Each structure stands twice: as C-alpha cells, then as structure tokens.
C-alpha cells in the first residue's frame, strides 16, 4: 500500500493482540485495511492538523508514503499509550513537557480524525475516556444498571464476571449467555454517555442477577468472537457517523 491514500485503518500498539486479531478478521471479510502502529503515527515524517473555517483537516504521511487523510472511511482506534523512546535522552523536565504536548496533539488529531472512528479520542484517553472506578459506578447507576458498588481505598470480593462489549451503539453479548434486556439497555445508555464508540463492561453474575463491576474503553475484543467483528465491520462501513 506504499504511497497510497488509506481508506480503512486500525491504529494500535504493536503489542495489542486484540486489535491485531480484529484487523485480521476484518481483512478476512474483504476490508482493505492497514494496521498503523502508534510508533508509525507519532514518528510519521509529516503530521498536519489545520483548522479550515469552523472545521479541521488532518493528514498524516507515514514513512512509506502512505497517507491517512480525507480519504479515510473507517478507523478502529486502539491507541492507548504514547511512544517515548525518542525522548529517552531528553532531560526529564523537558521530556515531561514534550509528552504533555504530544498527548495534546494526538488527542486533538484523533478526535478530528476523518471518517467513521470506533474509539474516538477524548482528553481523558487516546481511544476514549478512561474513567475512574467511582465514576464508572455512578454513571452505571445513572444508566439504569445495578452496580456492585464502590468503596474508596478498598474492594470487595466479587463473583466471576461476564463481559459485554458495546461497539458503535450495538451491544455484543457473550455467545450462549442470556443477558437480561435491562442490562442490554443500560449498557447501551452507558456507552452513549461515554461517547467513545467502543466499551467493555464487566458484570458480576450470580443467580442470574447482573451487577455492573467496571468498564474500559480498551477492552479485549476476542471474547466477542464473530459478533464483535460483525459489529465493527458494520460500523466501519457506515456512511454516516456511528453512535457511541
């Protein structure tokens, strides 16, 4: 794909097995995507973010000439960390400043990223907001979910959990597990409030009662199997912005 404008991309760290798995499964379905590592992105020869009127145009030209710009149609964003190897020799105070700057640049760039984005960046997380445990618990309650509760400075033992994934507003439930409708509806509401487009929600399940435990904007996608690939495929192929 050297020297071409990309239409589909998966942005991730090279260690993100979950993203690489999703990229492979999407390719099997004919999506001509490229995995772009966060190192390729940050060390790209040309990063450009420019305001135009009330909008923003972004364009990144990678080392091999590949362009991630206005022709992008769909991106799965799993960027969860900043590369800092290039700053190892930099004095610590200067390095801290540069990492803050780099974070601000990536948040701004990835929030304005063209096309459909699953995992839209937020100032509190490069692939969607990372909330504190208490914040998840309060938001879950407001979304109509029953939670296991939270105590500052400690945690209670909880039974084994089930993970529910929410991809662009679609709730993907574990295969062969019956999930109460209230949990599906609450998960969808919580995802809409979060706004990132991709969530993993853990529930403690005991005697068919589901209680919200925790959430993440960087879930392991593999337990979702083909259903999560279906949801990603549909979202990335959408012509319109997808819901959270």
């Amino acid at each position: 794909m050297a020297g071409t404008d990309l239409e589909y991309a998966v942005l991730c760290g090279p260690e993100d097995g979950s993203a690489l798995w999703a990229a492979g499964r999407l390719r099997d379905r004919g999506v001509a995507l490229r995995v772009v590592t966060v190192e390729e992105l940050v060390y790209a020869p040309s990063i450009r973010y420019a305001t135009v009127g009330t909008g923003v145009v972004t364009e990144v030209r990678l080392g091999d000439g590949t362009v991630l710009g206005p022709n992008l149609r769909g991106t799965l964003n799993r960027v969860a960390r900043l590369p800092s190897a290039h700053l190892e020799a930099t004095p610590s105070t200067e390095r801290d400043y540069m990492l803050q700057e780099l974070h601000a640049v990536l948040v701004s760039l990835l929030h304005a990223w063209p096309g459909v984005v699953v995992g839209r960046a937020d100032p509190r997380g490069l692939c969607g907001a990372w909330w504190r445990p208490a914040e998840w618990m309060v938001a879950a309650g407001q979304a109509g979910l029953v939670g296991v509760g939270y105590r500052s400075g400690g945690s209670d033992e909880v039974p084994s959990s089930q993970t529910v994934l929410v991809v662009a507003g679609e709730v993907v439930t574990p295969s062969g597990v019956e999930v109460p409708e209230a949990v599906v509806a609450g998960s969808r509401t919580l995802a809409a409030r979060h706004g990132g487009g991709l969530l993993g929600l853990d529930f403690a399940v005991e005697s068919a009662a589901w209680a919200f435990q925790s959430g993440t904007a960087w879930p392991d996608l593999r337990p979702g199997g083909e259903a999560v690939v279906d949801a990603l495929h549909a979202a990335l192929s959408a012509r319109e912005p997808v819901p959270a």
Partner: protein
Amino acid sequence: MILVAGIPSEPPLQEALDALSDLRADVVVLSQRRCAEIDLAFAVDSSGAVDGVLRIGRRHIALREVTGVYARLMDHRNIPEYQRLDVGDPERDRWAALNDTLAAWVDVAPGTIVNRSSAMASNGAKPYQGQLIARHGLLTPETLLTNDPEVAREFYASRPRVVFKSASGARSIVQTMEPGDLERLGTLRACPVQFQTWVPGTDVRVHVVGSEVFATAITTTATDYRYATAQVEEPARLEPHELDDDVAQRCVALTADLGLEFAGIDLKITPDGEVYCFEVNPSPAYTYFSGQTKQPIPEALARHLLAA
C-alpha cells in the same frame, strides 16, 4: 454546607472564602497543606448514589451534607509539608491516597462542583478544546499543528504574523514567530508544535459563573498580556467591558457544554468587531482581574455555590 479545598491562602480561595463569609455560609475548609489532619472515605452504592465521611481534625462531616464545592487542588507533590516528609515515610503514601480520593470524590459528588476534574480535561488539549469552541459559533484563530518543517515554513511565509504556543495545559508564553525561528524548525521532528495566525484587537477575559458573565478588557501591546511587563516593559491595563449579549450567551453555553460551573474564557475582539475565542480556563485565577476592576466575581462565585 460548602467545602472549599486547596491552599486557603491562595488569593482565589481567600476571596471566595471572604465572600462566603459575608453571606454567612456554612463553610468547611480543606487545606491541602494539612493533610496530616484529614481523612476522607466515600462509597458508591448499587444505584450509583455517593456518600461518605470527611474528617478534618476533630470535626467529622457527612459528605451528603456538602451541597457545593470550590476546589483548586494543587499537585500534592508540590506542597512544602509533603516535601518535608522523608522519602520512604508511609505518610507520603497516605498523602497521595488522600489526594487521589479527594479528586475521585470531587468527580462524582452531587451538588455544585467548581469544577470537576473530568470537566477540566479539555484544557489539556487546546486544539481539541478549539473544536468544541467552534461548535458554539465563536471564531477560533487559524491553527496549525505540525511536526513537518516545510508545512510550518509555508504557514509562516503566507501570513503576516504567526505566533506559537503550547498545545497542552502546560503554561507557556505565547511568542511571535521571527525569521530566526525558521532555523529551529528541524526540532519539530521530536514533537509537533502549535502555530496560530496572530489576531489583532483587544484581549477580553470573560469569567462565567453559572449564568453570570463578567468581561474584562485588557489593553497592552504585548503578544501575551500575562507577561506584558516582561515583553513590553509596561503592565497591561484592565477595565470592565460590556460584552455583546449574543457573545455572552455563547460563553455561558460553552461553559455549560464543557461541564464547567466557573470558567475564564479568553477572547479577542478585532477592530472589525469579530470575536475570536482562544481557550477556556477551567480553574481561573480570577483575582488578577477582579482585584484591578473591582468586578464582583468572588461574590458571584459564592452565590453560585450556595444556590445548589
């Protein structure tokens, strides 16, 4: 009950405390310098409701009784009393845990919270914040973020005056780009930089407290009015300013949309009357402005906290 948290001798907290006192408010002060005397624990129940207990010295406060919070929290690692603790002293861990718990509670506490850290996050990525500002119909300066020296060179060459500044929340001095800076563009490779077209006109700082608006005009020839004395050897002049109603309402809506109760918004009004918005400060040091103009910002803040 109103909780005021931070460093009480800091002018913004001190003036808010004075204003709350004038209104005979029931106030509790949490000084981050006295963490040794403080405990805080809270819980979220199965429905998402928050409650807990704050101990300051011998006083125990049920968190459910706190209806408003004004927090200007410092990084505890910069507090002298913390720095005086021996490395390895378990008290250091307790200070860290206490401050973390405080920040977590402020994020989820019911009532009027000035301001939640979650709502303050946009200030850490100014171009991102600019995207939100533009949605409110306020102009934003033409902005370029790039690590590409050629792109930066072209931006500079095609505009009469360009400034550069930090993109993050890190404090930096806005600088006008000079021909000599072109030689340094190679350093962009390590980290992209934010460039903006310089906008001529009058700086106006707008403080929004809930739905109340206080605008202050700043007159200076400096590129960055905060550093006017250093840049042009003359301090900036501050005066109350009558803001256009439409602009004032946009500022109120922007503040609310960001989830903020109190904000300091930096505008510039051009000679043609166009209004540009540069950024929204979620923890404004408002006393710099109210001290010179006598605008009743602390009184408005106190009223807003009590209105919960």
